[in-house]
């Protein structure tokens, strides 16, 4: 009974705190701040108020604030995961090679306990993406981990730019070419799929504009797909493209160049290291795995030094999870770049903070400890890049969402009354693609 009460109280706390902005102030004292953008500050305090970082400095005080003594502890900005599929009920509308009109933000599921588990690993923002079944998949949602909120809308990061999923290579080729026997079945077909989609969107737009300007009486048949594609061409949506091989990445950059599209972040991009100079010259971003490889042929020629090589070549790089297990220890994934590529502490930490924030266009809000930014912070026992570290507290918008000491264990928000007991799942350790979730090949 006590546990239920605790959970209930916990939920209530969230409910209140997220429907209203956090009123309470939190003052973290004597911490080692890993600010990311302004070096490491020892024995420093940080005050969180009204959901924002109010101030950073020595000997701060604030009446009525909850004080947390962080002597000997490390405080870093909330971790940003630029690639996940957590918190949504549908991942792939795997029926058409082009589904720009669909939007995973329409199917947010705030009750997934995976969100809480990510919080327990210090992740405060994630990019819930459409899957990689289609060349042009759906639009994605940048999500704040306000776990406990029951309304799906509460998880949306208000003001975050729109993003969309593209995908190259084996996945769309397999789903459409191999399985449905329609184009694209090859990397040649992939290129033409993009070119056709953009070209048709432009024709549609010119017809629609003519109608709106009164030049033509009859409108073309409205197409949310074409409208969305045009938003991409106009630069209103950041492309996040699932990709592996160097050749296909070069192909897409050429297509984008032809349409004057500038904003793109390549996801996974296992062979990015081969064309790091080209990516840097284009201004493309890269969001990579720390060490996943060899689970399919297009990632056979990979290296765990990818992030380091890209970083050294000036590509803004992040490390993502694409997996609800990895998502819980992105700090550990980032630290692998120190074994594989000797990145400095700050370079490694950038991979999971400010860099993914830049890739999502939310770097003014999150990704570093700076005055005025969102109060998304994680307190670590031990340096976050050490194997002996532990996230002990995660704060989102100034609300404590995870507290190692007071963790109530059963953090489910949605109880199925008909279920016998929470089901046991055998461990299945399968790298192959959360990106392909919901796709049934036969």
């Amino acid at each position, binding site marked *: 009974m006590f546990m239920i009460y605790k959970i209930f109280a916990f939920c209530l706390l969230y409910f209140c705190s997220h429907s209203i902005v956090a009123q309470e102030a939190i003052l973290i004292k004597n911490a080692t701040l890993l600010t990311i953008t302004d070096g490491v500050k020892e024995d420093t305090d940080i005050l969180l108020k009204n959901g924002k970082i109010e101030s950073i400095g020595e000997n701060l005080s604030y009446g009525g604030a909850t004080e947390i003594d962080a002597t000997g502890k490390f405080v870093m900005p909330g971790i940003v995961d630029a690639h996940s599929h957590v918190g949504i009920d549908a991942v792939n509308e795997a029926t058409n090679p082009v589904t720009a009109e669909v939007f995973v933000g*329409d199917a947010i599921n705030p009750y997934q306990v995976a969100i809480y588990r990510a919080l327990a690993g210090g992740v405060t923002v994630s990019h819930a993406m459409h899957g990689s079944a289609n060349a042009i998949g759906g639009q994605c949602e940048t999500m704040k981990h306000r776990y406990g909120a029951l309304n799906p809308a509460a998880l949306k990061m208000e003001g975050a730019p729109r993003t969309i999923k593209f995908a190259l290579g084996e996945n769309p080729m397999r789903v459409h070419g191999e399985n449905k026997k329609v184009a694209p079945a090859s990397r040649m077909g992939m290129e033409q799929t993009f070119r056709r989609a953009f070209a048709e969107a432009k024709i549609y737009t010119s017809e629609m504009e003519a109608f709106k300007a009164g030049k033509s009486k009859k409108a073309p048949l409205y197409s*949310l797909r074409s409208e969305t594609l045009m938003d991409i061409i106009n630069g209103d949506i950041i492309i996040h493209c699932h990709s592996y091989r160097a050749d296909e990445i070069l192909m897409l950059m050429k297509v984008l160049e032809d349409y004057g599209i500038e904003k793109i972040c390549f996801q996974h991009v296992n062979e990015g290291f081969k064309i790091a100079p080209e990516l840097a010259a284009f201004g493309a971003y890269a969001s990579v795995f720390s060490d996943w490889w060899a689970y399919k042929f297009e990632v056979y020629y990979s290296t765990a030094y990818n992030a380091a090589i890209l970083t050294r070549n000036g590509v803004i790089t992040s490390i993502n999870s694409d997996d609800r297990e990895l998502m819980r220890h992105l700090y550990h994934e980032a630290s692998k770049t120190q074994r594989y590529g000797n990145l400095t502490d700050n370079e490694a930490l950038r991979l999971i903070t400010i860099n993914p924030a830049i890739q999502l266009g939310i770097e003014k809000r999150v990704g570093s400890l700076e005055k005025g930014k969102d109060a998304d912070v994680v307190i670590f026992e031990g340096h976050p890049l050490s194997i002996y570290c532990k996230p002990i507290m995660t704060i989102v918008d100034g609300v404590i969402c995870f507290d190692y000491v007071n963790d109530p264990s059963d953090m489910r928000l949605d109880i199925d009354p008909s279920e016998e007991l929470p089901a046991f799942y055998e461990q299945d350790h399968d790298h192959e693609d959360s990106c392909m979730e919901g796709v049934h090949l036969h």
Partner: protein
Amino acid sequence: MNRQLNVNYIQLFILFNVFSLPAICQIDYNTYKKPGGSIFLDDVFIHENGDKRVYKGDIIIRDGIIEKVGLALKKPFDAITFTKDSLFVYPGFIDFHSFIKNGEEESSSKKSKETNVKFPGNPPDVVAGITPWRNMESDFEGNDGAIVNLRKAGFCISQFSYSKGMMPGYTSIFSLGTKSNGLLESDKHLFSQFKGAGRNYPSTVIGIIAKWKDLYRAAKIANNYKKSYDNSKLGLQKPTNNKTLEALFPIIDGESRVVFNMKKKLDIFRAVDLSKELDFPITVINIKGANPILNDLPINTFDMVLSSDLPKKKTDIDSSRLKIDSVYKGMLQRQEAAIEDAFMMAGELESLNKSFAFSMSGSDPNQLKANLLEMIHYGLSPSFALKALTQFPAEMLDLEDVCGTITKGKLGNLVLSQGDYFSKNSHIIGVVIEGEIIEFDGLDEKDKDNEMFKGKWDFLAKTSKQKLEGTLNIEKINKEFSIKIVTEGNKKMKATNVKRSKESIHFDLEMDEQTLSFDLVFEKNKYSGKLTSNGETYSLKGKKKTPK
């Protein structure tokens, strides 16, 4: 048999030779006209609506319409009188939504052929589950099993729709009388749900929502164009013929609303957000388990229709484990809390003064009353419950002039209950639908018998060769009887070929490659009967085991 043939010949004769005569001349001697022009309910307890009651009142129904309600009315000369002790009369219940299977059940081979299109990303609307131009008008069959069940639960009116895909069509509202001409309205609401088209577009909830936006906005443009074209055709191309888009015009013009069927509680948010974004009114039906999110929902911006289904209370609790396993205990407690939450939702809505109706498309009408009683136990008032079955759905269906209360001028739709409907021991003995009295013969009596069979009984069967001793275990699972013999040695044997009549049960047991047939007659706490094996008959009897 001969007579039957004769009748058919007569019919054929009439059909072929007097073809020009009006249909009234066709005669079917399998039916006959019932006497009387009106119905008189004498001295009954009338619940005119959720609040107003008349004790020992009378009701006169003529031509399917309520002519008079009041005290000590004069019985019309041509009336059939209906009277019974402690008869409680309620307005006919209104089911907000049900499915009829007619026309939807296609053979699987035909189905796969139809859905196996060349470009799954761009299938024809029919394959995509988008058929808003359809309605249920021609698919109603008054004696469909589903409708019989609805009537037995007290429903007199229901709104029906097809069930396939994201936008199966418009709903049609029917009176549930046995005649097939019960249509009240043919294109009432546009029915929609988050149900994908399998391997075709749209297959997921995100695809469906995108498709909705796409269709709706396209329809808006088409609607505007059609209006200006209708206004002046000069110099304008004629509108593109697109029956899908045209079917959305009534929604755009505010003449109709969308009924969203939900499967899980997040669907409510999705439907509400979609309706807000596209700006059309909606009704969300089959709402279940939404109690925790009531505060998060803008409940005054949409109509709510609850599923009458409730989760089952835990019966299989492992009490020995409960004592030692704190994790198990914790889980169980959370689960029980969730179950209670489900039971409380209706009452919670009443306390928020939010009117709602019930839909039966996701639940078993036979369970309606039991579930209502649970809801009442958890805070719903009987009068609000009655309104949710009558007045509220009438309002939501814009039928408040036609039904929902027992009022002069409205349809003669009544529920006849032996005893207070909201008490445990009452049962519905019949309904009146547009003046047609439909009585249910002894159904509830039978149900009582069911109760009588259930339980554990002594069992001792002897033949010349075999002896079987143990417990006779009779359970009711999903309306079917399951009979097991558990022998002394804890060996279990399951009976086959179970048949029952009002007081007796027949079943077979396979033993040593022989079939033993039992016919047992039950009486309160004992039974007696016979056992047949190899052409020989033996008698047996037993008593009910008293639970320790």
